[in-house]
């Protein structure tokens, strides 16, 4: 029997980027907000300080900041005719845990999606005709113009370092000429570039492209955000993505929001509170709160007027499934929406090797330090006759020189032994990697549901992921890789290796922590779980933030859009929902 606590106005499940954004916005409105986090509190100076944050074994390979699969994981298979098996170790993607969530160990690349990304189906159909039958992409129900002010809010919160390419419709030198019009320049100038991105940019310019600096949440100078919270300049320590920042120079919920949020008396954070399910009203027309378990195993019922699910996408989807909220998607019948349109991203790389006189010094790095071109993203180029839609960026980021993670040896090097050791010694510090980072569309056969066999530590069925790369994505990735090879050839190295992404999708090698879909947003309850304000169509006092809302996955890092959607939702809650609580903000 659960112990029932007094009702709260707002309960937020999961305290990462969007949990903190929603809490900040709603406490500013005067609401009483309780956030529940399964992990523990973490402080920069005591938990991942400059004294101990630089440890490749501990953080990258022993997953100190990542979620523990012994508590909950998922099963995985490439297609529905296979038996899904549990993801026993993290690999392909690395969600976080503890206060700040995955946003503590992100790299800080902070994009806006293209205006056409939000109307992917109508835009592509209009330009290229009917799409493949099993491609289930759809329009988002929200436009770039609606999100623009919220992108700006997030960029100012974080102090993004970058260069605008389109200010109010006027193109700007040195920025991304393809981006949607932005109302403001980035709050901080771009980071200073090291040699590798300069080599990339020079080669790309020579081929007629317009390289620009990655929009970066690593500070290019000291910054104080509109909440009054201060960030320090990035020191290029080379332990950024997959690591936490030890000197307050990477934007995250703890470094941009929490110093102010935690001081508000109408906010409370409860840690080590593992939410097991969302509680529904008897009539199924609203939620009444959540149920969580303490480390001692006590079950607590926490009633709430409003519940916001802000966990990583698979957990948001899983919570809906185990709580019986909405119908789980079935690929055969095409019925059900929960778990539908799971998508990912597709990456590939080219490594250019230089002679021993050229020292790249790869350890001088930051998560979002680099140069990039956007000519082949989204619909920035004509796809006629190419046999695919979508695209991605091609860029050079110098993130780190961590020996095990970033080792690169030329083709033909023995897998181990004396030859490998020699090649490692000769090539470390003399290579530059170019990456491509591409969109993945949604498909009938890529989805999430519940596993029939495996259970988590709390006895709940694991979520089951069925996913593979499809022809559209593999063709697109090959096309991007070919363009990357052309740039690599112009970079003047000694030789290069090309790592194309081939099917089947594997959960073993790290690719990106950019999983999307499963509780997608849209214009109609017939084809989406939430409306454009991330409000559940059938249970209007339930909101779901995060990339689970993406109907398909564009070719950019998602955090900027994840945050903009949260601010968009919070603004609507403040503006209209609170006037008529429990009512849908969009009529079905």
């Amino acid at each position, binding site marked *: 029997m659960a112990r029932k606590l007094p009702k709260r106005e707002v309960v937020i499940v999961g305290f990462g980027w969007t949990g903190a954004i929603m809490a900040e916005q709603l406490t500013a409105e005067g609401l009483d907000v309780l956030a529940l986090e399964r992990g523990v509190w973490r*402080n*920069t*100076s*005591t938990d991942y*300080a*400059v*004294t*101990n944050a630089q440890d490749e074994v501990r953080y990258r390979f022993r997953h100190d900041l990542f979620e523990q699969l012994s508590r909950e994981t998922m099963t995985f298979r490439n297609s529905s005719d296979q038996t899904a098996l549990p993801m026993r170790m993290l690999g392909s993607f690395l969600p976080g845990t503890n206060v700040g969530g995955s946003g503590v160990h992100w790299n800080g690349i902070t994009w806006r999606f293209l205006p056409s990304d939000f109307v992917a189906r109508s835009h592509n159909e209009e330009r290229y005709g009917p799409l493949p039958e099993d491609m289930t992409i759809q329009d988002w129900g929200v436009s770039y113009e609606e999100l623009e002010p919220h992108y700006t809010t997030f960029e100012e919160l974080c102090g993004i370092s970058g260069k605008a390419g389109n200010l109010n419709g006027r193109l700007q030198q040195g920025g991304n000429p393809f981006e949607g019009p932005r109302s403001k320049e980035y709050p901080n100038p771009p980071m200073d570039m090291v040699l590798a991105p300069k080599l990339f940019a020079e080669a790309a310019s020579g081929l007629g492209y317009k390289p620009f600096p990655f929009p970066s949440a690593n500070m290019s100078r*000291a910054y*104080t955000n509109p*909440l*009054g*919270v*201060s960030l*320090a*300049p990035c*020191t290029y*320590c080379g332990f950024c993505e997959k690591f936490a920042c*030890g*000197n*307050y120079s990477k934007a995250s919920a703890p*470094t941009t929001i929490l*110093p*102010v949020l935690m*001081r508000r008396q109408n906010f409370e954070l409860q840690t080590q509170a593992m939410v097991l399910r969302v509680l529904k009203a008897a009539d199924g027309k609203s939620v009444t709160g959540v149920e969580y378990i303490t480390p001692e195993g006590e079950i607590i019922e926490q009633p709430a007027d409003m519940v916001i699910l802000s966990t990583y996408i698979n957990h948001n989807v899983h919570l809906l499934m185990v709580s019986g909220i909405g119908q789980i998607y079935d690929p055969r019948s095409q019925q059900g929406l929960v778990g539908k349109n799971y998508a990912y991203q597709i990456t590939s790389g080219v490594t250019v090797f230089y002679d021993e006189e050229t020292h790249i010094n790869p350890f001088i790095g930051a998560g979002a330090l680099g140069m990039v071109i956007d000519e082949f993203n989204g619909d920035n180029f004509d796809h006629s006759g190419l046999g695919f839609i979508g695209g991605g960026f091609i860029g050079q980021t110098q993130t780190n020189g961590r020996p095990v993670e970033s080792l690169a040896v030329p083709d033909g090097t023995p897998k181990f032994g004396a030859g490998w050791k020699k090649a490692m010694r000769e090539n470390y510090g003399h290579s530059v990697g170019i990456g491509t980072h591409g969109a993945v569309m949604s498909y009938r056969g890529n989805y999430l549901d519940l596993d029939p066999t495996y259970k988590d530590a709390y006895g709940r069925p694991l979520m089951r992921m069925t996913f593979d790369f499809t022809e559209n994505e593999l063709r697109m990735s090959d096309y991007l890789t070919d363009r990357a090879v052309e740039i690599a050839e112009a970079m003047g190295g000694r030789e290069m290796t090309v790592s194309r992404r081939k099917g089947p999708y594997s959960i073993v090698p790290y690719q990106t922590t950019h999983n999307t879909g499963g509780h997608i947003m849209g214009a109609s309850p017939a084809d989406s779980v939430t409306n454009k304000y991330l409000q559940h169509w059938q249970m209007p006092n339930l909101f779901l933030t995060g990339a689970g809302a993406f109907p398909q996955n564009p070719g950019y890092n998602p955090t900027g859009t994840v945050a903009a959607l949260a601010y968009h939702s919070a603004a609507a809650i403040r503006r209209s929902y609170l006037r008529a609580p429990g009512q849908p903000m969009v009529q079905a």
Partner: protein
Amino acid sequence: MRYLSLAQSLTRSSRRIRIAGLVALSACLFAAATHPALAQGTNDWSELQRGLYLSRVGDCAACHTADPEKPMAGKYALDTPFGTIWTANLTPDEETGLGEWSADDFWRAMNEGIRRDGAHLYPAFPYTHFTLISRADSDAIYAYLQSLEPISQDVMEPDFPFPLNIRFVLNGWNLINFEDRSFTPDPERSAAWNRGYYIAEGLGHCSMCHSPKNFTGAVKDGDAAYSGGMAEGWLAPALRPGSGGPGLSDWSKDDLMAFLRHGRNSRTAAFGPMAEVIDKSTRHLTDSDLDALATYILDLPESGEAPADSEAIDTDDPAMQTGALVYATQCSACHGPDGEGIPGQFARLKGSSLTQSSDPTTVVRLVLEGVRSVPTEKYPTPHAMPAFDWKLNDAEVAAVATYVRNAFGNSAPAVTADAVAEIREAQ
């Protein structure tokens, strides 16, 4: 209502005010600061507000609020060189607090350091400073304390060794160290200076930390005053130039006011006991009181001879070499490759008097324990320095301390590994 009886006692006690003129003066000074109608007893609410404000000026909560859930209920363990004292319960609890105390009793405690039962209070309670304050201010604080929720608290006797455990002995202490004083404004000085004197020397009891102590633990005055002291094992830096180093000689009034208001300024950030003082006390000061305090502090005359300039240690010195490597790999990410810091975030070491202070205890403790700058309204970010005690051995801490004291144009005596070991053991 408790306050009714309180008002009666205030009326009774007013007859005993010795220096009537002082009331008028202090009311006058307050007029600029807070509220025009401050005559005691005329307005319950404003009297309580004034008492609350004065209790903040005096930083009462620092010692008397051990548990935030039990404001002013005392039982805070004060470590003194002679043993531990547990602070008194200031809430109006009849058994364990000030419930039975009259305003006269309270005034006697403030003014003379004598308890309601006639016993002497230990001078960890700064009656040596509070003796300066006006009866009206004492009464306002009393009124405020009496308005608090009564909280029952265990009364703990200090664990002093004989003969210090006999309070009678304090007669002797007082004979040497205590003078019952009152405040007389200096007509030659500005109103701000006079007000600043009243705050700093009276309720603010700044010199309790910022002055050296004599063998009985009493604050030294005269030339030694404000030449730096120790507080809870931290160096409270000199506030006046002279024997304790440059003090605040290159601080502007804006620097000092920003520091006291926001915990940070363009050169440094408050930490340790001063961070608590700012959080609980100085950030609440009115603009004019803050200005007055800064005016007085920055006007302190030079004290004694400045210590001879220490010659910067050569960069070839082995400790400097190790220190440079430790600094480059551990410290420069925040304090900057050239010790320049980040205004409002990380302290500047270049030219910092604290870094170069003759007593390196604070520098060494900062490295060993880590420290947090106080979060305030203007600077909510609680930037903190991590603890290096697990990572750097005594020689390495000594080397990096020596380095920061002698790099960037700084110069101060080297820190030895033995000194670090001693400080480490004391933790």
